[in-house]
């Protein structure tokens, strides 16, 4: 059996390893576009702030890991998939046949269409190469303008600040991480980073960028101008699906998959950021570009590709963010559920926050700030659809007892 995996991010690597475990004889090829060993974008901030070298970002540390597991690494850019002949075609016209194909091509950062976005000095922060370029230009004392304060924007903020740059952030939404956190939490994060010396403009976009000598001048939607040395564009991501045009695979923004992570084309599977899988709560197709989700989907896809049986129960949004030392998390339907109940506990002075959202006596979503202990149990409660019974009332009164609730409900007296 010949397995081909397009994309060597976490989804690709986990899928390759899982295939090897379930199909010891299979031929496995893992295709990556970049001239790097498979690495994790999650680690880029730590590379950028100098706490780890290149290798520290690598998904697997042993030098012979892939060789040892019989996973063939191939660098190249796939430009086309031909389902009839079960072949993928590379930019250099090389071809590679497959019995099962996994599309784990991930996503790419969006560059908003505005004048000057392609000027030198305007970077995305997505690849190791991007990070190296930013590291070179973002010297101590230099001015950096960051477009977007979403997840990626927030995790690189610390790295930039630790480099001693003067940072300005522009966010279209009314708060930081608007698609990941409640209004209150996003606002608290904003106050926190402002306290740390970052200048934040919310409800604002960049309308144009012009060069001014070595510097760049960005005009904001409110008319203000910001002169800066570097612009980093962190305005969201889109699935990498261009090369699938003409393959016949059903797609929206991302590749449509079923619960077995199959596309509607025979022998082609997809996993990770590139997919539009059904949401855990909604059952509707949604994009969900997060690492744990990618790893889960990859395992499901690989087991099915190897002839096993595994189902994906739906993508659950789980996020953790360290924004200049302020740690926040969100889980599931953090915005709440129609007809459900919720509780929000705010301690602005000490930057602590907790919101729990219920549907009946089941937790469907949560948001926290300033809390690191036992946060995983929030996932456990949401994903296990655990009935809380009398604990729900207790949690509405004191949400900080969620871990006790979890332990109580899982460690019943036998």
């Amino acid at each position, binding site marked *: 059996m010949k397995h081909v995996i397009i994309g060597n991010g976490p989804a690709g690597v986990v899928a390759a390893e899982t295939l090897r475990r379930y199909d010891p004889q299979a031929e496995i090829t893992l295709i990556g576009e970049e001239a790097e060993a498979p690495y994790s974008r999650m680690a880029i901030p730590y590379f950028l702030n100098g706490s780890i070298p290149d290798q520290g970002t690598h998904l697997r540390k042993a030098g012979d890991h892939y060789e040892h597991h019989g996973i063939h690494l191939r660098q190249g850019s796939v430009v086309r998939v031909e389902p009839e002949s079960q072949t993928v075609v590379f930019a250099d016209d090389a071809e590679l046949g497959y019995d099962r194909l996994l599309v784990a091509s991930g996503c790419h950062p969006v560059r908003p269409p505005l004048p000057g976005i392609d000027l030198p000095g305007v970077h995305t922060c997505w690849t190791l190469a991007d990070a190296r370029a930013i590291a070179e230009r973002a010297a101590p004392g230099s001015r950096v303008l960051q477009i977007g304060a979403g997840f990626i924007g927030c995790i690189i903020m610390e790295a930039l600040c630790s480099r001693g740059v003067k940072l300005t952030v522009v966010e279209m939404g009314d708060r930081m991480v608007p698609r990941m956190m409640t209004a209150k939490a996003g606002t608290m994060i904003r106050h926190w980073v402002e306290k740390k010396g970052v200048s934040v403009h919310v409800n604002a976009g960049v309308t144009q960028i012009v060069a001014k000598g070595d510097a760049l001048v960005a005009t904001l939607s409110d008319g203000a101008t910001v002169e800066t040395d570097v612009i980093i564009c962190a305005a969201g991501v889109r699935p990498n699906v261009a090369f699938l045009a003409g393959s016949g695979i059903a797609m929206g923004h991302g590749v449509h998959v079923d619960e077995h992570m199959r596309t509607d084309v025979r022998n082609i599977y997809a996993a990770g950021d590139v997919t539009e899988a059904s949401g855990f709560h909604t059952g509707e197709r949604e994009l969900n570009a997060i690492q744990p989700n990618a790893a889960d989907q990859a395992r499901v896809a690989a087991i099915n590709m190897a002839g096993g049986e595994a189902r994906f129960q739906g993508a659950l949004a789980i996020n953790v963010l360290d924004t200049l030392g302020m740690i926040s998390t969100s889980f599931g339907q953090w915005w709440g559920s129609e007809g459900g109940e919720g509780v929000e*506990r705010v*301690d602005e002075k*000490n930057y*602590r926050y*907790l919101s729990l959202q219920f549907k009946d006596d089941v937790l469907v979503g949560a948001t926290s700030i*300033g*809390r690191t202990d036992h946060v995983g149990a929030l996932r456990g409660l949401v994903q296990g659809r655990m009935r809380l019974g009398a604990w729900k009332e207790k949690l509405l*009164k*004191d949400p*900080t*007892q969620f*871990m*006790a609730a979890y332990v109580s409900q899982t460690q019943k007296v036998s």
Partner: protein
Amino acid sequence: MGWARKILRVDLSKGTCKSEPLNMEWAQQYLGQRGLATKYFVEEVDPKVDPLSPANKLIMATGPLTGTMASTGGRYSVITKGALTGAIACSNSGGYIGAELKMAGWDMIIFEGKSPKPVYLSIQDDVAELRDAAHLWGKTTWDTEEIIKSSHHDPQVRVCSIGRAGENGVLYACIVNDLHRAAGRSGVGTVMGSKNLKAVAVRGTVGVSGIRDFKAFMTATTAAKKVLADNAVTGQGLPTYGTQVLMNVINEMGALPTRNAKEVQFEGARKISAEAMHEKRLSDGKANLVTNAACFGCTIACGRISQVDKNHWSVVNSPKYWGATGGLEYEAAWSLGAADGVDDLDALTVANMICNEDGFDPITFGATVGAVMELYTMGVLTKEQIGIEAPFGSAQALLEIAHMTAEGRGFGKEMGLGSARLTAKYGHPELSMSVKGQEFPAYDPRGIQGMGLTYATSNRGACHLRSYTVASEVLGIPVKTDPLVTEGKPALVMAFQDATAAFDSSGTCIFTTFAWSLVDLAPQIDAACEGGEAGWSVERLAELGARIWNMERLFNNAAGFTAKDDDLPTRLKTEPAQTGPAKGLVSGIDKMVPEYYKLRGWDTAGVPDKETLARLGL
């Protein structure tokens, strides 16, 4: 080094919190907790001070073994001039807050002055601040703990607080921590309330790192834990039965003060004993005792977790008492039970819950109810005055009076005086079973003679925990002595007093001394603490105990106490035991005191002589 080497000084008048280095010279002489905090106290406070005035101070202190792996290393003490007694007060509590305070990096907190409005102290490691407590004032200790944990977003916060009793000036209010542990006696909670200090909330994540020799410490604490595990009392008796193991034993000896000490045996003892707590109730088929529980670091686990029958008349309309919580210890079972002639186990358990919930000492409370019941029987107090018929044996009266005391309602205000003031007010001071204003507990000095001297000479007023000669006279620890004789008791009491003062200054629990002596304690302290060339030997700890005892004595003498205060209630000296092994006996206290003074190196007025002071470096 065991110590965190840092103390927190809180000026409630000014609203400030300041860090100070611990006086290490004093630490070498007084170790920690009771000894060291008392040293600070006597250096800083005028012995004549009115306990409820802003000039009184209140110290919460840990010991060097608090917050360590030493068994029972979770204790803290509250030192002040007692509201009930006017004597030096030192109330010791377990639970978890002592260890938390140490793990936050503090050896002790000194509160001084008086806050203009209700506040509570919040400690998060090195950050300490006074916060508004308007929303907590009027709340029970249970509610206070819950509200603070919730508002701090942290279920791990440890809280000690006063309940309504402490706010209302009940003179024997305690400071309750972890729902049902308490710095219980002498009115330390009343002093806290007088300062408008509602609670202390602590979260410590710094830990205890300054152990002198970790390896030696682990060896010493492991060995000491084995001693506890192998001992019949600490290894089996206490975990299984708790201190309540004593109820039937002491009753059999004819040393269970009953109905305000009119009698020495209680016919209902078995019904309120440890054995009864284990038995299934006829009403709902469940036992009163749910499980045993430990305080921080404790490998004995004598604590009782009890649950009453939901349909018991006392709680049928009060769901908050339906869950499991701290149950009866021996002293409370005695004071609420035998002392009042009440034998309804669930009723006593609920009365004890009310004491925890609103923070008042069940020993003094129960003993005061006993005095009230006697006054009622004599016709001195009437149903109209009390608000309920209150004959001995009435569980209804006990609970109604408990509620009134908790809420500061009606006769509850009178109850808040304690038995000495209350009986004096109604013209019968002889009916108060107290010494220096504090009621004695559950061992009748007619049947256990050593305890008479213990009560009479206890520096904090009558108390069993200053020299628990029951260990020797009843249990044979370390050697069996005859409980019915006075011979040899002064020396026994003195040795117990000194050793106890050392234990109380270490951070460990006095209950370890059923199995441990200073021989077991010394190596643990020595491994934890810098002790100079001499190290921490048994002899040094015994001497330290004597030094503490004499320091406390000097304070009390200066506060106005004299030899005549080292005495027992007349009843114990003139009304012989009518039943049991002690039948016909009264307390031989008058024989023991002079000998005790002599052994102590005190003159006949009970004042330490120059040689004694010089020998102890006082």
